[in-house]
């Protein structure tokens, strides 16, 4: 059986301005690959978390799924049907099945429109015939707000309430997949817990799948079934959440998880410093793209992009010298 969402070798390109020097030398503007060959699967009714470096292409990937940016290569399939591939997209059939929850709830809710009007919008946009006042009340109740919230305006909501309205809007047309970009950023830990519990309950009840983008690794550890770690437009490690937290294999994953700060000023932190600068998308490093910053790089890492290791479906990663194996085994044959 095919997964709900299947992404294969996805590529998304943007124009890069190029430096003054490049232009003087007659080299024109060049393309950057913000998403550079990503493959992942989201199963029905599950939660998939996408984590990774800021600027690594997570939001771009999400935007490609809902057709907000064009796909330059690879494909996106939903319930087995191709909805986007190089140069084309056909979202009509699935527009109602995929919803996106934006990061900034107050900013993404129009300030002059009441909650009622915000929640009615998806029905109007998709020409769905429904008893709107009944639907609005149903949606509000579903996210734990009383129906009289319908007459409030965004600035009259707390951060947590606004976020609930965002969830309600995303669920309006009973989608099968909700893409949530930083759903809990800016919430205090108690309200964050309420929201995640709510998402979990709705998942159990409605069977909706979540593709969640977040920087909050503690949240990922608790709620995600699977996770993918992005670095410079690629997934460097991917798989079931528990095993990855227990033993990250890729050195970037290892450094990222080690940077997760503990709520204790005296925590005995074992950081794995990442060296040097965030690499540029216009001058991608050769070989393994993490090698200039990796404390464990071997010679081969400078020249050869590591193959994907681990096809058991539990976890896969790209690293020549992965964490979690004894040193004797870590030095691979020279290529």
């Amino acid at each position, binding site marked *: 059986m095919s997964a709900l969402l299947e992404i294969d070798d996805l590529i998304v390109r943007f124009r890069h301005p190029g430096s003054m020097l490049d232009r003087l030398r007659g080299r024109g503007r060049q393309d950057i690959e913000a998403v550079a060959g990503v493959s992942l699967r989201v199963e029905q009714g599950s939660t998939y978390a996408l984590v990774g470096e800021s600027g690594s292409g997570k939001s771009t990937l999400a935007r490609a799924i809902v057709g907000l940016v064009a796909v330059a290569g690879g494909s996106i399939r939903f319930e087995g049907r191709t909805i986007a591939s190089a140069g084309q997209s056909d979202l009509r059939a699935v527009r109602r099945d995929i919803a996106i929850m934006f990061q900034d709830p107050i900013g993404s809710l129009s300030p002059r429109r009441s909650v009622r009007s915000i929640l009615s919008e998806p029905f109007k946009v998709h020409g769905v015939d429904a008893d709107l006042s009944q639907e609005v009340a149903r949606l509000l109740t579903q996210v734990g707000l009383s129906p009289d919230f319908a007459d409030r305006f965004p600035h009259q909501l707390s951060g947590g309430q606004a976020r609930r309205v965002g969830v309600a809007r995303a669920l309006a047309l009973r989608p099968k997949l909700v893409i949530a970009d930083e759903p809990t950023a*800016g919430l205090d830990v108690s309200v964050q817990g309420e929201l995640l519990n709510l998402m979990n309950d709705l998942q159990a009840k409605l069977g909706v799948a979540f593709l969640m983008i977040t920087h909050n690794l503690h949240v990922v550890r608790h709620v995600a079934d699977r996770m993918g770690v992005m670095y410079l437009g690629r997934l460097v490690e991917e798989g079931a959440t528990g095993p990855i937290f227990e033993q990250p294999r890729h050195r970037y994953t290892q450094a990222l998880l080690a940077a*997760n700060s503990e709520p204790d*000023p005296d925590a005995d932190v074992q950081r794995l410093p990442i060296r040097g600068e965030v690499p540029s998308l216009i001058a991608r490093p050769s070989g393994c793209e993490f090698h200039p910053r990796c404390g464990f790089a071997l010679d081969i890492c400078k020249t050869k992009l590591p193959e994907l290791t681990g096809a058991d479906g539990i976890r896969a990663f790209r690293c020549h010298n992965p964490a979690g194996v004894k040193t004797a085994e870590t030095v691979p044959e020279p290529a």
Partner: protein
Amino acid sequence: MADDILDISGLSVDFRTPGGTLHALRDVNLSVKRGSVLGIVGESGCGKSTLINTVIGLLPSNARVAGGEVRFDGRDMLKMTPGQLQDLRGQRMTAVFQDPMTALNPVLTIGQQMVAIQYRSGASTREKRRRAAEYLAKVRIPDPEPRLGQYPHQFSGGMRQRICIAMALLAEPDLMIADEPTTALDATLELEVIALLKDLQREVGCAVLFISHHLGAIAQLCDDVAIMYAGEVVERGTVREIFHDARHPYTRALLTCDPGRIREATRRLPTIPGSIPDLRRLPEGCIFRPRCPERFERCAEHPGDRRITETQFAACHKALDLAPLERIEA
């Protein structure tokens, strides 16, 4: 020279709303020592942004300071003329806001904006651009020079936030106010930004008022911490006092809700039952009483600040009687 770069005492702020007066801040006392970092934590809607907007003199038109003082380097800011405030802002006191999209002008390039904020400097535009690129590099934006020519929407969320931080640092201020500056950053960058803020503090002796929901970031960065609830500072102390020996039931509940404290993965996360009171119809007595697991008869009376140590205060009748909170097991 005052010891505290910022000293807030008895501050109360109201908002006029259609449903009546909303008492967003009530009798807030706080201070930021020169060159130190004060963290503010609290429930969404507890008044953190209102506090910051009062300090930088940018309250919305329906707000009114109902009482109190805000002293910056010994001078009461609430008595300053708009011109005097303008001189402080962007020079001796800079700010980074929660939402980097609204802080940056969408129709100007990053370079134009970073040059414009150096308007007080006598340097040439070329030199200002060089400094702009230097600060972008400091916050780890790759290819800073060509990227000065790009517009805000061409950067990722985390990059925009770092650009805002670079802009706030350019002035080398005495106080930098940062409203959730690291929420949009991945864990490694968050650590780097925290290290950067610490370095800056050492280099230019800048103090930081740091607001965050991320208790891990607060624990790593701050010297002192204040906990706010529904418009009041319910507890303040050194970072160790707050994280290791919190005395207010709200602080303790908040710490317990942090998923970072829970070792075993769980789908059901702890929360604080109930919700924040309506700030237009305040309950009598202790503000946390309706949700407090420790409440008893005396809580009908507002507790006021209890002094726990030289540096720690908590607004709770039971502050001195509560057993220490369990430490996170390793």
